[in-house]
């Protein structure tokens, strides 16, 4: 194992550890506000993973949409409903132990599965910038979903407006 491999793997483990820690914090933090901040951290970690996977465009989208839009939206909601979740309140419901059991089993199952399946691995390298071809595909092959999702976003806007309006 050469040095670059070690460095790459170390880097991966670092990023993964940070991401998972932030994720744990998101789930465990008593204060919802702290949880939301940890969520932002997780999003950053995932963006870093995207960068390591050479999906730069997606990393940027992740930061712009997830952090710029969704996380901010969540923070706003936290602010608006503030004062409900005090520090002394229990942040978990009654079934958390069962959930832990089920989720643990699920993880075990997934892990075994991941190791067993012969995943498709071509080993091809990314030779050029992926963004132009991505854009082209969005306008040709994936035109229909692209248009549908635009209608969907508009409808969502209208719906959210109706539901949340004073």
């Amino acid at each position, binding site marked *: 194992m050469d040095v670059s491999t070690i460095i790459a793997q170390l880097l991966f483990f670092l990023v993964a550890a940070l991401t998972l820690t932030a994720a744990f914090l998101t789930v465990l933090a008593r204060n919802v506000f702290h949880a939301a901040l940890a969520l932002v951290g997780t999003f950053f970690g995932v963006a870093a993973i995207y960068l390591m996977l050479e999906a730069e465009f997606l990393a940027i989208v992740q930061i712009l949409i997830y952090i710029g839009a969704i996380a901010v939206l969540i923070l706003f909601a936290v602010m608006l409903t503030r004062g409900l979740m005090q520090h002394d309140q229990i942040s978990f419901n009654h079934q958390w132990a069962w959930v832990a059991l*089920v989720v643990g089993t*699920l993880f075990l*199952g997934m892990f075994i599965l991941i190791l067993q399946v012969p995943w498709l691995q071509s080993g091809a390298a990314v030779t050029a910038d992926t963004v132009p071809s991505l854009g082209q595909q969005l306008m040709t092959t994936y035109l229909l979903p692209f248009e549908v999702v635009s209608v969907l976003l508009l409808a969502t806007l209208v719906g959210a407006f109706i539901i949340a309006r004073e």
Partner: protein
Amino acid sequence: MVQNFTLFIPLLPFLAFAIIVLLTRNNNRLSALVAILSIVAALMLSYGVFLEALSEGAELAANPFYGAPIAWMPFGGMTINFGWYVDPIGAAMLFMVPTVCLMIFIYSTAYMRHNHVDEHGHPHAEDDPRYARFFAYISLFTAMMLLLVVSSNLLQFFIAWEVMGFCSYALIGFWSFRGRKEHHIDDAQVGRARGAAIKAFLTTRVGDILFMTGMILLLITLGSLDFNKMYDPAAMNNMLAGLAQPLPGVEWPVVIALLIFGGTIAKSAQFPLHIWLPDAMEGPTPVSALIHAATMVSAGIFLIIRAYPLLEFAQQTSGPAMQIVAFVGAFTALFAATIGLAQNDIKRVLAFSTISQLGYMLAALGIGAFVSGSFHLLTHAFFKALLFLGAGAVIHSIGTNDMFKMGGLIRKMPITGITFFVGAFALMGIFPLSGFWSKDEILLDAMREGFYPHAGMSQDLFLQIIYLMLAIAAFLTALYTGRQLFLTFLGKPRDQAAYDHAHESPVAMWAPLAVLATFTVFLGFWNTPFAPAFFHFVGEGGFMGLPPFEHSEFDPIALTNMLVSTGIALSGFAVAWGLYGFRPIQAGQPDPLARLGFVWKILVNKYWLDELYGYKINLDGTAQPGLLIRLVGAFMRLCAWFDRNVVDGLVNLAGWLSRILARLWGWVDTHIVDGLVNATASVTGEIAEWWRTMQTGNVQNYALMAMVGAMAIAILFLLRSFT
């Protein structure tokens, strides 16, 4: 010629139903008129078909009048057509059903008016508040019975059968609710009617489902449900050869035949599903006549007639299908006759006699006496309708069902009394009424086959047993019918007030009785052992692919049998006279047969079958589920209790113990002390409550459940793929 209009016969009463529901429902007289006119039209049409069939005679049996012009339903590779099928027995049914229905309709116009005396002592007659609706229901009922008779395939038959089931629910429960101004029924009646309607519907549903399963299996194995093609010998043999056995040692034909017979058991109230029929007496009396004479129970027998070739085939190739039918029939005939001895309700006696007589028909069909079984179906319809309508007239005039409050009524109601006597003697099998000829023929067939076999055949013990059961049943029939006559029409009045109130019914009620009595007297001559015209018509051409039936000449055996059965009937009647007629029962005196002690108790309680697996409906309108249902309910409670307490798991011991005690007490309380829980609630209700508690309202619980579900499915998949 007329046969081309066969499909209009069921259509006419159906139109009447539609017209009453849509247009004339607010006008009682007009509604009744529409119903009667439609049935008269249907009657004329079906008489036309019948006469045409008579003129064709046995020719018709070989080439039934068949048409299925409407391509209706595709199934697998074939198509089921909608059409008509008239063969001699169908034509004979077309003669019987509209005739009896017309009489019942006319009778109902008067019966559904109630007399009551207001606070000033003035008598009033007013229509039942749902008079028009009643006529709509019975029109639909009749339409469906006629559709059933003319249907060209089993699926069409089944649909008519099911709609009839729903109508019977509506009609038996006709008095299961009460408006503010209804005087003619009380709360107990309402409660009984509710229970009875549900009981009838659900019990017959059990049979319907067996029937439907058998039908689908038949369609798949045989490839057709058309009566014209269904019993084609080649297809039958394919059915046997082409398929694996459903169970080791059992072949498909016998399974299918018995499933279809299951439909008959429920619909024709045979043991052990007869429990609904006595309670169905809660409906208005014309409904009882309709259900027990012309339509619903006959439909069950008619199903066996239609499935007769299948039964024969099953018997010959794969198992004792016919023998089972015969045994169930004979057993029911005997069994119901014993219960009939101990009933005090005038209509319930008739109900058990119906069950018993239906058993007779099935026994006849089961031993291969196809023609005499069919003939008994026809004659029985007439005299049983007569008896029910007569009983209705009595109830209408005296205001009670209890025979121990009657007595001597023939002096007040001579016409009703005389016609009732005619019907009762026919039921007993007294020479020369129609019941004598048809019942005698059944006994003759059993006797001839059982005791005097053809050359080269040994005596058949099975048939001998059947004969003995039927003979004893005939004796009991004469006994309880005689009892009914002596208690009701003869002797001294036991309730003077009711007796004074009694009066002869209006003409609209006694005229149908007279007509039915005429038929009862003369119909039997259609098929006497000397001149078997009915046999020539129905049996001589074979039946749906079967070879022609054989009819023996009038010989000493027949003569012996006539004498023996007359003797049986007369001795039964003589015993009845000895018990009830010689020294008439006084008011307050117990039934002389009550000296039988425990046996009497068994009979009064109908062998406790309602308590065992049925649903007991009490006189006061309350009801209890039977033991079986309660046991299942208790078991479910136990499961639910176990579930709750194990899952909770956190309750402390003291609370736990006290809860056990409380629950035990509660269990005793609900199941033994009052035991009045609704049958449905106690079985499924418990499971339902238990499952319902899963729906906690917390969405995260739901999501966890889904997650577990998805994982369980994934794991199940994995387990299967590993094994």
